[in-house]
């Protein structure tokens, strides 16, 4: 078979970090190639070089035998390469057709040929089975529909090689399955595909061939039917990292109870009739596809949002309306969803970040003045206790790696022996070593009797850590199931909202 795409000797450095190191990769006509790697392995950088967003330090890209000039997305598009970005590149306030048409016509033209464009879009949409409404605003579409628009954008520009960056990150399992069926159909139409993933099961299920990227290098290439998930896992991580295992132990009394909580924001219901209870020494896992109310649940439990109706109690005391500071003082530890935007202030030092949420407590301030020495000593102790590497209390926190940053956040949460811990996507974007460390810390807190609510989009993680699991779908929670009853199929159904039908039937 002919090679439609070749990456030859690609190297790219960012400062001291080598993102890609002499990467060679090729894609055959009609093939689905999975690019597998951990977070931080350099997958996205490699695809950004291929698409022309970045210029490689060394090496080049060939499409259908012709070398692409570096750093020019336009050249990649014209050569027939399309990219579906993980963070969609769509404008919410504009229509589907606007988003698709952009860049397809010469800029200086007296009039946009919208009618022709609409016809062409509908034709492609029919041919590939990707239905859309051309005049709908992107902002009104679901995540799955937006992804469809992203794919259509590439197809509209006559892409023959499609690159998808973590395409299932925002999809429910059934949606993901449908997506891969569509992609398979596209190969029959002559397209060739690369998809980037760190999820073994979908790599095994959907690809013809898999290339494993680790530390910026291709460490292995396998035909998918001649390998297995275990081998790929080991290749991907490169060393044996054992995630800690949850030990069964006795669960204590209820700590945090939510009863029929409703949360509205700008007239939109984000949480609807949500009830759950977290007991001492227990981890309650909340699973679900991104964008189903996790953010609202996180905001509620971290004190940023107050329930519109219903009750939230901690050890019997109402805590729904006491704000973040009140939550902290009541013994709630909070790990935010996005550590860079919510967890830390990057330009401040470690010590300032470590004490920021408790800065008004007498331990860290007196008469309105910050007790800097106490704060620095406290931070030094955290650094030691939580094994935060490559930093002292005065280092700016943005210089830490994601894993070390997360350790500091966990440290400031767990150092105060909280009654209840909210762990919102605690391992998002971390590599395997850091994931294991975070899991160990959470399990240790559980062993000490903390009640923990874990919000996770990684099913494996939720199942491994949680004692009980509930699914969140469109702002509603399923009934809890015990972890030992949680298999992939049942969780998949729960996350697709199938329990709701059961409820209605009952």
């Amino acid at each position, binding site marked *: 078979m002919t090679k439609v795409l070749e990456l030859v000797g690609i190297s790219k450095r960012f400062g001291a970090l080598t993102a890609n190191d002499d990467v060679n990769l090729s894609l055959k006509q009609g093939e689905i190639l999975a690019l597998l790697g951990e977070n931080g392995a350099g997958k996205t950088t490699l695809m*950004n070089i291929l698409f022309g*967003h*970045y210029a490689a330090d060394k090496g080049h890209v060939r499409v259908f035998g012709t070398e692409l000039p570096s750093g*020019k*997305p*336009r*050249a*990649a*598009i*014209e050569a027939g390469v399309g*990219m579906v*970005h993980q*963070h969609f*590149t*769509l*404008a*919410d*306030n*504009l229509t589907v057709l*606007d*988003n698709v*048409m*952009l*860049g*397809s*016509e*010469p*800029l*200086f*033209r*007296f*009039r*946009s040929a919208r009618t022709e464009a609409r016809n062409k879009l509908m034709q492609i949409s029919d041919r590939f089975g990707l239905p859309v409404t051309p005049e709908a605003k992107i902002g009104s579409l679901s995540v799955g529909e937006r992804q469809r628009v992203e794919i259509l*954008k590439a197809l509209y*520009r006559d892409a023959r090689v499609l690159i998808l960056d973590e395409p299932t990150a925002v999809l429910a399992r059934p949606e993901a399955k449908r997506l891969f069926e569509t992609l398979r159909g596209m190969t029959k139409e002559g397209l060739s595909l690369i998809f980037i993933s760190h999820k073994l099961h979908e790599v095994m299920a959907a690809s013809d061939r898999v290339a494993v990227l680790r530390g910026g290098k291709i460490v292995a290439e396998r035909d998918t039917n001649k390998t297995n998930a275990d081998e790929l896992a080991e290749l991907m991580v490169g060393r044996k990292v054992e995630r800690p295992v949850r030990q069964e132990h006795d669960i204590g009394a209820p700590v945090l109870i939510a009863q029929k909580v409703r949360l509205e924001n700008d007239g939109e219901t984000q949480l609807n009739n949500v009830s759950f209870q977290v007991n001492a020494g227990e981890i309650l896992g909340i699973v679900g596809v991104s964008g189903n109310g996790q953010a609202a649940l996180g905001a509620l439990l971290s004190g940023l949002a107050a329930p519109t109706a219903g009750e939230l109690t901690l050890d019997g005391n109402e805590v729904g309306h006491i704000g973040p500071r009140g939550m902290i003082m009541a013994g709630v530890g909070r790990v935010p969803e996005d550590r860079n935007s919510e967890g830390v202030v990057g330009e401040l030092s470690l010590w300032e970040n470590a004490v920021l949420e408790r800065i008004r407590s007498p331990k860290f301030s007196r008469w309105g003045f910050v007790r800097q020495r106490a704060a620095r000593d406290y931070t030094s102790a955290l650094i030691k206790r939580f094994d935060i590497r490559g930093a002292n209390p005065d280092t700016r926190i943005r210089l830490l790696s994601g894993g070390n940053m997360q350790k500091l956040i966990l440290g400031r949460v767990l150092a105060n022996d909280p009654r209840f811990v909210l762990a919102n996507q605690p391992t998002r974007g971390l590599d395997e070593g850091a994931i294991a460390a975070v899991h160990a810390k959470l399990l240790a807190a559980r062993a000490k009797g903390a009640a923990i609510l874990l919000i996770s989009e990684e099913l494996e993680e939720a199942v491994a850590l949680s004692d009980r699991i509930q699914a969140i779908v469109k702002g509603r929670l399923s009934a809890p199931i015990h972890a030992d009853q949680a298999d992939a199929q049942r969780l998949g159904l729960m996350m697709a909202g199938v329990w709701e039908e059961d409820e209605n039937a009952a």
Partner: protein
Amino acid sequence: MTDAIDLLLNTSLWAAVLRIATPLIFGVLGALLCERSGVLNLGIEGIMTMGAMSGWLAVYLGAPLLVGLLVAAICGALLGALHATLTVPLGLSQHVSGLGITLFASALAYYLYRLIVEVGDLPPTIEPFEPLNIPFLTDIPVLGPILFAQAFPTYLALFAVIAMAYVLTRTPLGLAIRMTGENAHAVDAQGLYPTHIRFGAVVVGSALMAIGGAFLTTTAFNSFFPGMVQGRGWICIALVVFASWRPGKALIGALLFAFFDAYQLRLQTTTEGVPYQLFLMAPYVLSITALVLVARKAEVPASLMTPYRRGER
């Protein structure tokens, strides 16, 4: 009280509305274009000052009036290029850069004026644009003097509104500009250069602002003096918000504003016992009120004031 109503029925008031609105129309279109591409241009006040000075100076030194407008536009474009360089590829704070441009451009305009022009007791003057008095049309009762006896730049402004609306909504370039203001990453991902688009929008927008300034010295008045822009630039920035970033609404906003301004000027002369400063305050108070009324519902371009750097989200 009847005086106040009589004023409203006077055609000269309504003719003045269009005249007063003209610099605002240019300014608000310019600011709108910049902001639609994602760049706030607080250099407007200084760019209008520079436009007023340079346009006037060109004519004073012997150029035809139209060349004066062109000179103003070029000066505005150059200042726009400076603002664009600082805020687009370098990604500096649009607030600070814009204010810097305003301070710089105003100071430079005053400096050059003092340097080149001999100022006696009275500032020197030029022959400004005269009303066109379009044959026959001007003679239409009421509407004639209002619509068809304006000076050339006023018609240019009205044409600019239509052109801007057309370009933004009907052409590929307009789509690219709007998209850049909404999500620059999307533009890059489609093979266009968001930085080039922003640069171009700021340069053209600034040229429009400068023409607005030049209107003051080549049509409304016939001389240049420091402080003559009097916050019109800032009012334009407020009008853009009021207009929800739409050219058509911008025209309405500018006309509305000009109406109140023209009306207060006439009330000033007929009303006694009220300090004239209260009348002069009215436009500024009005602008703030308008902002308060619309700010909540405003559809701000989503990436306004967000610099674009590849690989940074």
